[in-house]
């Protein structure tokens, strides 16, 4: 069925949007760029990196932006005339052109380290990804856990205290994971057993966690830093050979334990969810708990286990903040990462790989924001600091089409 309206909707509007983006690139960036100035992008994370060093990328600023603007307009025209099938590709092209021209504009006459930014994108994405994975695993079983932020905060504190007291980072890691599991178990108990509104329970956990960690922090951690709050961090582990690959090596294979664990978890969870009996049951419970129940699946058990495992993942995320990053606990140090993780989960369509990918987008925004501050763009730093939050909102409004949550998400199951 081809009606006139379907033509308008599917081709014309996106095409116009793309062309306007192209013009914006021209107006915002190209005009404000001096001719003959270049932008230099570093392609080595640092001189001391194990990776094979490669030359920096030098782009003539004005020409580069003109090319990107033209490419964008070209794609817009193509979209209007012929239509481009993949929405993902469309958005990719537009986003890439815009970000790239922005970078070239901001870097004109200066240089900045591109690979470094990618590397910190991954690191910045790690706690977000862990929060998102926690969300994926519990929401696939239809339990919304908005208390991830608080769970991470409590785990972060538990990790640093136990690691400091035991002088063993691995003890801290285990304690963090257990703490996360425990908090999640509480949440699960509240929402499954007592049918507390899932979001309300999560918010309560967040408020409680903020109060409790601040209380413990001011009562004990600050007074006896060496006794409780000085754990050290997991070292960077370079994977032999792989870390020598230019660009990819330093980004992917020179990281700390928590980052590797996160990448591993993404793969494991993806396989578990879609290729194992447990995953099948989890998804069934999230989509149609009654159907699962009639097939003899214990809906409550599946939910408990998933929420608790999710909590343990969030616990690992909490560990990242302290023993994975800075070796000490400070009040409200999670700074909203748990919530951004939830947005990443939604953007990633409740898939582990998707959630990880969208976490990377947030990590990228965040490290880009830092780089922009360092480069001294005329945008006030306060506005640059808003970037990750604004991106979260844009992503949530579903520019890429509305993601469908698991059908029973957030609904308590009533067993008769």
């Amino acid at each position, binding site marked *: 069925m081809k009606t006139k309206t379907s033509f308008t909707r599917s081709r014309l509007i996106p095409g116009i949007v793309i062309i306007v983006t192209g013009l914006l690139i021209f107006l915002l960036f190209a005009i404000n760029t001096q001719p003959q100035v270049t932008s230099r992008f*570093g392609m080595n*994370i*640092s001189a*001391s990196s194990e990776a094979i060093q490669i030359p920096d990328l030098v782009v003539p600023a004005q020409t580069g932006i003109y090319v990107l603007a033209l490419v964008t307009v070209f794609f817009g025209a193509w979209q209007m005339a012929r239509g481009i099938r993949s929405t993902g590709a469309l958005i990719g092209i537009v986003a890439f052109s815009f970000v790239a021209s922005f970078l070239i504009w901001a870097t004109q006459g200066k*240089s*900045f*380290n591109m*690979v*470094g*930014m990618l*590397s*910190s994108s991954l*690191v*910045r994405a790690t*706690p977000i990804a862990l929060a998102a994975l926690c969300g994926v695993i519990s929401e696939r079983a239809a339990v919304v856990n908005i208390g991830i932020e608080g769970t991470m905060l409590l785990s972060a504190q538990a990790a640093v205290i136990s690691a400091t007291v035991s002088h063993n980072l691995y003890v801290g890691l285990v304690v963090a994971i257990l703490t996360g599991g425990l908090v999640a178990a509480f949440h699960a108990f509240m929402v499954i057993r007592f049918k507390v509104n899932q979001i309300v329970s999560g918010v309560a956990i967040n408020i409680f966690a903020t109060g409790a960690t601040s209380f413990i*922090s*001011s009562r004990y951690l*600050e007074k006896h830093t*060496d006794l409780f709050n*000085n754990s*050290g*961090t997991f*070292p*960077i582990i370079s994977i032999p050979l792989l870390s020598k690959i230019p660009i990819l090596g330093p980004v992917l294979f020179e990281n700390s334990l928590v980052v590797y664990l996160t990448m591993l978890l993404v793969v494991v969870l993806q396989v578990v969810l879609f290729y194992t009996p447990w995953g099948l049951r989890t998804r069934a419970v999230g989509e149609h708990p009654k159907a699962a129940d009639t097939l003899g699946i214990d809906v409550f058990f599946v939910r408990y286990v998933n929420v608790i495992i999710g909590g343990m993942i969030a616990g690992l995320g909490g560990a990242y*903040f302290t023993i994975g*990053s*800075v*070796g*000490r606990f*400070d*009040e*409200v*140090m*999670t*700074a909203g990462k748990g919530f951004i993780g939830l947005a990443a989960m939604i953007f990633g369509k409740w898939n582990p790989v998707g959630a990880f990918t969208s976490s990377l987008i947030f990590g990228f925004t*965040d*490290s880009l924001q*830092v*780089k922009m*501050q*360092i480069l*001294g763009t*005329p945008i*006030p*730093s*306060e506005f640059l*600091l808003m970037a990750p939050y604004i991106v979260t909102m844009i992503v949530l409004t579903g520019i890429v089409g509305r993601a469908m949550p698991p059908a029973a998400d957030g609904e308590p199951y009533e067993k008769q």
Partner: protein
Amino acid sequence: MKKIFAFLSLLVVASMLLTACGGTTSSAFKVGQVTDLGGIDDKSFNASAWLGVENAQKELGVTGKYLESQGQSDYAKNIQQFLDEDTNLIVTVGFLLGVDTAKAALANPETKFAIVDYAYPDCWPGAAVGKDCGSDKEIANVLGLTFQTDQAAFLAGYLAAGMTKTGKVATYGGLNIPTVTIFMKGFEAGVKYYNQQKGTNVEVLGWNTAAADGVFAGNFESTDDGRSLAESFVQEGADIILPVAGPVGLGSAAVCKETGNCLVIGVDADWYETAAEYKDVVLTSVLKKINVAVYDAVKRAKDGTFKGGVATYTIKDGGVDIAPYHDFDSKVSAELKAEVEAAKKALIDGSLTVDGVLAK
């Protein structure tokens, strides 16, 4: 049900009685500190001021207490609480308490006040006294404690410029507020002075006095932000970082320690001591001895030598300074040490000035 309510009301009455008669009035000299929003454990000026009170407790036998402010309206309330307890000296921390401190001081001339990072008179032409500003003249019972931190930061900048191997040094702040940016301005000035003296071209990342903007973490809490900022600075080629963001800076120290790619310069206190876990990477610290200033104020108040006005702590009296090099003593060349000393002397005798002095 009735029982529960009855029990509750009993509890209320009981505790009322208990506290009503249990109020012990000691004759000790009482010091009360009102923090600003950072709270007592901000690892910055609130903590430093409290250290001064604690030292006074130990050495002068006074009793000290603090009240944390969670919002703007708590300032007046907390000061009032201390007034109600007949506190002898009230130490308020931070410029945000400026107006409330002045009001309370004017209304309670018997009570002594000390305010950190602020001083009276603080009014400008056309400002309404008691509203826009605290007072248009000195207040006899308030001692303002201010610090020429930029002088110390200047020396740190000079030192950093001399120590950098990459030709780039960096600084960042928590929020874009004057007590933070004064460090960054001084630091930049020091580097520029070094360049001027040596004809070098050491770059400062993270602050630009002309634009009055630079790199900020946006908070004083997220140590992870400190980590990522340091990583980014290192990627851009900086190897010495001055973080002016309370505990956030410790995240930077952590990453330097982990990678060995960078050094940090501590702020407020000597991080070699207060953050000993990172002592291998602490080149020096920009000292802002609030604790000493507060201790002095307590001492004077107790001795009866307290006088209102301003006590400005400068490089001259050692109220601001840079910390010893400790482990880096051997790594800093004798020549550079001498130059830093010379700059310090020049600052003391006034032959050298720093731009961006803390405005009044």
